[in-house]
């Protein structure tokens, strides 16, 4: 019988990282907007 592996552990502070992800997505979108504006 094969041994069942425990589910992979999430890295610590997953929730905080997950919340910050949205912030960085927003920042990236703003940066992209500025670049498009500058390179028009």
């Amino acid at each position: 019988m094969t041994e069942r592996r425990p589910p992979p552990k999430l890295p610590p502070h997953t929730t905080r990282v997950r919340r910050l992800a949205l912030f960085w997505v927003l920042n990236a979108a703003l940066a992209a907007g500025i670049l498009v504006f500058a390179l028009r």
Partner: protein
Amino acid sequence: MPAAALILFYLLIALAPLALAAGRGRPPRPVMDEIASGMAMVAFAILLMEFVLSGRFRSISGRVGLDVTMRFHQLLARTALVLALAHPFLYTLPFARPLPFDPTRQLTLTFAAEGLVTGVLAFVLLPGFVILSIARDRIGWRYETWRLAHGLGALAIAVLVLIHARHAGRYSADPQLAGLWAVLTAAAVLSLAHVYLLKPLLARRRPWEVTGLRQLAERTWEVVLSPRGHEGISYRAGQFAWIRIGAPVFSLRENPFSIASAPGEGKDLRFVIKELGDFTATLSGIPLGTRAHVDGPHGNLVLEGRQGSGIAFIAGGVGIAPMLSLLRQLEIDGDPRPTVLVYGNRHAGQIACTEDLARMRRQHRTEVVQVLSEPPQGWEGERGMVDAALIARLFTEARHRDWLYVLCGPAPMMEGVEEALLDLGVAPRQIISERFQHD
């Protein structure tokens, strides 16, 4: 999804100045100069939107929650700061008086005193302002003083930046963009007026009165407010309100507290309040009949619109307040789902609302798990902290995977519990929480 729509709307406004500036069809300047102007315009748009993201608008915080609204307010302030501070250093064009053959200012930067002085002032004030906000709890000001300084300081900086943009910017004097700045500045000023003038004026017409006050546990009080001459507020279990007790409507002595009563119990509002600082420490001496004002309901720590085959309430200390409301309403509604309440405190003298807990056990068959980190001799409940180990032990069964988890308590407890639940395979949307402290 309304939250996603809000974020898109935010992006749209933050980038609108760039679209309007580009729409004028001016000849381009060196890329670095355009990036600098672009950064400055986005920073200003963010700055003006910070006023609206201040947490007092139900249409925003009611959708995404106060925690998320405040966190965005705090994080985006940092984005605006970085953009604003970096932009002056990116310009490559020389400062000079306008050249007669360069009407669109493609070759020089504006050298007008109004633009420079206001820009330099804002440049110096903005970082100080942000540091003062981040270090709020460490600078030792009263919260009310800080709040007033924060509102007025932000307004002063916004006005400086408005003048700076108008005089130093290549684009901001154009009618369309000037119009956008006017609209956003008006929105900022109106949101201040809304919180500091309109809400107090409305509150004056809907007074409340302290009709109950008793000590529940060590440094923990129950306060009951009853509406006088009106119908009270219509709220959902788990929401909170800003309340002002025995202070004039225009005073800044206003604090947020979760409503611990349930909508189904009637019009009176019950609060469970822990003595902590200057307002809460005066509670014990408040006479019955004292005038109060209530601004609410706010917040979205609510069960409506959420799924779960059972519900676990995990509270630390005074974080029990919203749980009482939620559990009481389930009891009134005769909700058939199983419920567990995990309630952590340091010692037995801090356990509040024992009658409510007993009633929940008896009538709603709620499983109440009491946790003490300094238990007395013979304590039969759990020992230690409300931490990952305890959660992993309590919610191991497969049926717990799709329960709903409601968290309220000290930040380290909530973070630990959240991690533990995610580790157990609970989906993030099944975990909802509210912070009492926005640091």
